[in-house]
C-alpha cells in the first residue's frame, strides 16, 4: 500500500513537477584503490517491486562498455534515452564521485533502492557493487561496496 501511495506521489510529481516536493540530495561514491583503469559506474533506482525506476548518472563515456554495467543494462537494454545528458567521465581508483540533484520526497521510505553497478577494463564486472534502500534514516550513513566501491552514502 505504501509503495502504491509512493508510486502515485511520484507519478503526480512527474505530471506536475512544479507541485512536487523535492529536496537536494548528494550521492557520494568513493572508490577503492583497486589498481586499474578508471571505473565505469552507473547509479540507478529500482522501486519496491524491484522494477527499474530511472538512472541518476553514468560515469564513463563509451557506450560500447555499458553492457558491462550488467544490472542496469539488463533493466534498460542500454537505452540512450535513459541517460541522455547524464553521462560523464569514468572515475579513477581511489577517487570520489559526488552527484547532487533534486530528488522527489516520494522516493524516500517507499521501498526504492539505489544501485551502483561498476566495471573496469580488463577486470571483473561488478553489478550491484553496492545497493542501499533510500530512507530518511539512512541518510549520511556510508555503506561499503563489494569490489570497486569503498563506500556509498547520500546526504540531504
Amino acid at each position, binding site marked *: 500500500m505504501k509503495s502504491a501511495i509512493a508510486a502515485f506521489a511520484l507519478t503526480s510529481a512527474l505530471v506536475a513537477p512544479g507541485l512536487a516536493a523535492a529536496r537536494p540530495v548528494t550521492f557520494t561514491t568513493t572508490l577503492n584503490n583497486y589498481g586499474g583503469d578508471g571505473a565505469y559506474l552507473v547509479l540507478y533506482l529500482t522501486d519496491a517491486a524491484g522494477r527499474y525506476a530511472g538512472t541518476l*548518472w553514468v560515469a564513463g*563515456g563509451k557506450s560500447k562498455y555499458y553492457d558491462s554495467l550488467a544490472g542496469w543494462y539488463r533493466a534498460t537494454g542500454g537505452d540512450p534515452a535513459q541517460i541522455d*545528458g*547524464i553521462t560523464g567521465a569514468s572515475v579513477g581508483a581511489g577517487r570520489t564521485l559526488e552527484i547532487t540533484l533534486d530528488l*522527489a520526497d516520494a522516493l524516500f521510505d517507499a521501498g526504492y533502492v539505489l544501485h551502483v553497478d561498476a566495471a573496469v577494463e580488463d577486470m571483473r564486472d561488478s553489478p550491484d557493487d553496492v545497493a542501499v534502500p533510500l530512507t530518511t534514516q539512512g541518510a549520511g550513513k556510508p555503506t561499503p561496496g563489494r569490489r570497486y566501491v569503498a563506500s556509498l552514502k547520500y546526504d540531504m
Partner: protein
Amino acid sequence: MRIPWIAAACLAALPATAALAEDDCHAPRAAWQPREAAMQAASRLGWRVEEIEADDGCWEIEGRDAEGRRIKAKLDPATLNVVKLRHRDGGRDRRREDVRAPAAPLAAPPANPLFQNGKPPVVQVN
C-alpha cells in the same frame, strides 16, 4: 569489461570520414596507415607485438616493451604517434580518462523523470 573483437570488422564499414565522438583517435578512414606500418612503428619503439586490432578509432597493440613488461597501447592511425600507453601493472604514461576535466555543466535538463524542477545534476570528481 572486454574490448569487442568486432571493432576491426566494423571499421571497414565506416564511411570514409567517420570518426565517433567516443573514440580515442579521430583520423578519417582514408588517412589510416596500414596494419604493417603500425607494426613497424611498434617495432621501432622496441615493442614485441602480440596482438593488434582497430579499436576506438586507433590501432591498439598488446605485447611487451623493450624491458619485457606487458603493455597495451593505442596509436593514432594516421601519424602512428602513441596516444595511450599502459603497462599492465596499471600505470599509464599519457592522459588518463579519469582525470579529464569534469563534464561541463549541462545546458539542458536530462530527459529523465527522476529529476525534479528541471534542474540537471551537479557532478564533481574529487
